[in-house]
């Protein structure tokens, strides 16, 4: 107890250096914990993108590519699939529901997804959460549009606004389907997934705006008005992909095999969970790199502490001699240094946690605003406490060097240090 008091008072006496040392440890600790947190959040957000869908079906390519364009709205499909194939699989006895997806157009950089109202009924994200409307309702009629939360917020759209869809996926496409604007019928609540960045329209609408187009350009001299197009047969001939929900989950593998062996057309069915894991593994390599970097930052922080402890050794030589004189054994001199390091590490660790918690709390609104990514409030988990104890353990380990030097000296110096 007296040793703790002495260590504390001695530390307090050197508080400027101490504060800087604690701060350097705090920063490395908050960095290590922060990276770990962001990693988990990113993974969570990634895995949250789609839920409760048993199969994603598209033209034959790779499962990761299929998932990227159909769910993450990244990249383009190599091929479409025919409406007939879609219908045939949708009628399969194991299938409970399907949602068709038709991609290829955009609006001011945001992808336009042609689908039907089943999308709002069956699509699930995160932990089987349904899509919810902030305002309005699903589209009715050919030219209805439902905006993702980010699209509406960033572009400032409200219900009833008319939007024009551009051909192709680029943000600077000059070929717009100007003559057939869509009316915003609903705006979705934020989901933290690609849904927020999507403009949802009807499959029929997609068909209608392309009715007077061929090979990516309007057919000269043939312009069909919006009203006339709406009255024509808008049954799509092709779609890009579709989501499948099954009556029994166990049928997923069997149906997947059936679809992959489907004779009339080269199709690919993938189980989202498996493809997501595969995708995360592919892009998750950065995790390892980040971890290594933060580990070295931590070591740098601890080395800073070690340096401070070593530089104080000389000025504390007299202190040790006085303690020896009043009967402190060399082992306790050793312990004094370890105790000091432990106190510094514990304070640094706790300050680091505070820095991280407050930092995330303060940056939450900004991150949500800028990236549409809602960071949950950070609270230390078991793992974080574990890491903190590793930091304290390492600090204690590092401190054995100055402690050992002080121990040796206190044996040699005895009561007679001349300064």
């Amino acid at each position, binding site marked *: 107890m007296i040793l703790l008091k*002495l260590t504390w008072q001695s530390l*307090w*006496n050197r508080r400027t250096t101490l504060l800087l040392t604690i701060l350097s440890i705090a920063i490395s600790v908050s960095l290590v914990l922060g990276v770990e947190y962001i990693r988990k959040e990113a993974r969570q957000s990634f895995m949250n993108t789609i839920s409760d869908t048993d199969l994603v079906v598209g033209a034959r390519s790779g499962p990761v590519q299929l998932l990227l364009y159909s769910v993450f709205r990244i990249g383009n499909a190599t091929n479409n699939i025919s409406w007939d194939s879609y219908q045939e699989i949708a009628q399969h006895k194991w299938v409970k529901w399907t949602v068709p997806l038709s991609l290829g157009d955009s609006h001011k950089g945001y992808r336009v997804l042609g689908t039907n109202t089943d999308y709002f009924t069956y699509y699930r994200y995160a932990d089987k959460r349904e899509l919810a409307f902030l305002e309005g309702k699903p589209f009715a009629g050919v030219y209805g549009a439902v905006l993702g939360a980010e699209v509406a917020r960033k572009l400032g759209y409200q219900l009833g606004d008319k939007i024009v869809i551009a051909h192709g996926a680029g943000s600077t496409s000059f070929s717009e389907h100007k003559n057939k604007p869509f009316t915003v019928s609903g705006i979705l609540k934020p989901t933290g997934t690609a849904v927020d960045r999507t403009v949802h329209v009807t499959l029929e609408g997609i068909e209608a705006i392309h009715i007077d187009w061929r090979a990516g350009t309007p057919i000269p001299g043939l312009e069909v008005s919006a009203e006339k197009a709406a009255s024509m047969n808008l049954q799509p001939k092709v779609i890009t992909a579709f989501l499948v929900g099954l009556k029994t989950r166990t049928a997923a593998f069997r149906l997947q095999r059936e679809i992959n062996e489907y004779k009339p057309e080269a199709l690919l069915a993938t189980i989202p969970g498996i493809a997501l894991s595969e995708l995360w593994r592919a892009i998750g390599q950065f995790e390892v790199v980040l971890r290594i970097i933060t580990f070295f930052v931590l070591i740098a922080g601890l080395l800073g502490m070690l340096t401070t402890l070593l530089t104080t050794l000389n000025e504390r030589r007299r*202190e040790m001699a006085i303690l*020896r004189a009043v009967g*402190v054994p060399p082992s306790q001199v050793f312990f004094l240094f370890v105790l000091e390091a432990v106190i510094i590490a514990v304070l640094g660790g706790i300050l680091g946690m505070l820095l991280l918690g407050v930092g995330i709390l303060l940056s939450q609104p900004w991150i949500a605003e800028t990236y549409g990514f809602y960071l949950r409030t950070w609270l230390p988990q078991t793992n974080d406490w574990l890491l903190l104890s590793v930091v304290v353990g390492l600090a204690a380990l590092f401190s054995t060097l100055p402690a050992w030097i002080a121990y040796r000296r206190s044996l040699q110096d*005895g009561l007679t240090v001349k300064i």
Partner: protein
Amino acid sequence: MNVIEFANLRYRWKGQQQDILNIAELQIRKGEHAFLRGESGSGKTTLLNLLAGILTPTSGHIRMLDNDFHAMKSSQRDRFRADHMGVIFQQFNLLPYLSIIDNVSLPCHFSKMRKERAGDIKATASRLLEHLKLDNEFQQRPVTELSVGQQQRVAVARALIGKPEIIIADEPTSALDTNTRNDFLSLLFDEAESQGSTILFVSHDPYIAERFPRVIELEEVNQR
């Protein structure tokens, strides 16, 4: 009773050809304040560390208060030092981060025996300081604001608290001017006498020697 007893004591530093200390016999009785005079390099420092139990003799025996140091482990000697010895250094005796009272009470935290003898530690520390002419007003000051003479008196209070049997003073007056030195010695003697501690005063300064009932010339007892 002998407070300190040396018998055929020899000490030789590792790697040296010659003993630095070779004392056939030396005894200091209780209350017999002794002045140990020796030039630098005469083995004073080594002798002090042997007395404090930090070094152990190469051969021979040291008995302190009828305890054979030879039979004790180093941790037991540390304990013995905490219980029975007060040490005053040449200078820089105090921990700058502790208050004056805490500096004085320090030995009581490492020795139950001295704690019990001191009773109310703070009151005892304060009373000792007052006897040493450091009144209440002084006691509130930070250690760093004290003059060298005042610091040395605080060191005396620390050495004396809990009535240890032996006070080892290693040139405590060398940084003091003549007047301060005389005052310091008087206060040290008075307090040590009143609580029955025996002083072993080490110095090279022959002018102080006359105040001691016993003077030991290290050159004479040391037969190296």
